[in-house]
């Protein structure tokens, strides 16, 4: 069974309550063919455990890495991923679109 948005945000709250650092990543803009719609959420805790999806698997690894930084710094970040692997993150979307992902700390 796929995790639903409710489960994802509930997990974020539960992780925080049990003392974890938590970050929330949200797809805020898409261009062209994007695997997950605007508004999709991914939550990440300080152990690198994550739930949800911002790209159906294409860039989650990079988002998790950035999220760990956000948990440490507390500063939100805007990440952009395109099909051309020229982005700083060295990953791309196989489907040819571009997405912008907002990553913020919870709490």
């Amino acid at each position: 069974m796929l995790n639903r948005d409710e489960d994802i945000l509930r997990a974020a709250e539960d992780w925080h309550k049990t003392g974890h650092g938590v970050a929330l990543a949200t797809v805020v803009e898409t261009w062209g063919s994007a695997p997950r719609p605007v508004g999709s959420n991914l939550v990440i805790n300080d152990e690198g455990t994550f739930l949800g999806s911002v790209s159906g698997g294409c860039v989650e690894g990079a988002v998790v890495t950035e999220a760990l930084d956000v948990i440490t710094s507390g500063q939100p970040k805007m990440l952009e991923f395109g099909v051309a692997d020229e982005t700083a993150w060295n990953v791309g979307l196989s489907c040819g679109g571009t997405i912008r992902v907002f990553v913020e700390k919870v709490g």
Partner: protein
Amino acid sequence: MQLATLAELNAERAARRPAILVTDVASGEQRLVKAAAIGTDPLSNELTTHLRMGKSGMVEAAGKRLFLNVYAPTARLVIIGAVHISQALAPIAKSLGYDVTVIDPRTAFASPERFPDVPLIAEWPDVALPPLNVDHYTAFVALTHDPKIDDPALLHAFARDCFYIGALGSRKTHAKRGDRLRAQGASDADIARIHAPIGLAIGAVSPSEIAVSIMAQITATLRLPAKEKEQAA
């Protein structure tokens, strides 16, 4: 996101009330607008439009770029009739993320053996439906072929403004159903809301194929803009 905001958002979602999270993506500043407060919000127009479309997106306001994340309740599917089609329909709907409930007062039909892993209520619709709080985010299908069970259920679905209402039966059966429902106070607009014969015309034969056609029609109703919806129907 503040923990308090997250907890509030989770509470709204648990209560099946829509809410919109407004984020200034430059500063990270954020506020949660609950459904009841949208009318008085400075961004009222934008929020209303986005909620109606069920669509999240970026807007510009007072020189700021704001991201509106629309959190609408999880769609539900209420199935009247624990029949063969329902046995195929329930798991398909579950796999699409719907919360599914099956209602049938006939206990021989509504048996857990026939419906493993699906909430099953072996009661008449007038008893089973009120506690479910059927709402706009609910798809409603009447599949028993029995007016005693389907008709009161459909009247309930009209009153609760379900986004999709479908009923099994030929055009002839449906015409008779329309007469019966009108006699019980339903309007022509109510009757027009019923998808009957139910499902998209995909030449479905088996109960499983009919279930696919129903679920496809529900998806089209949920997702397509009005004009394309007419073409699909």
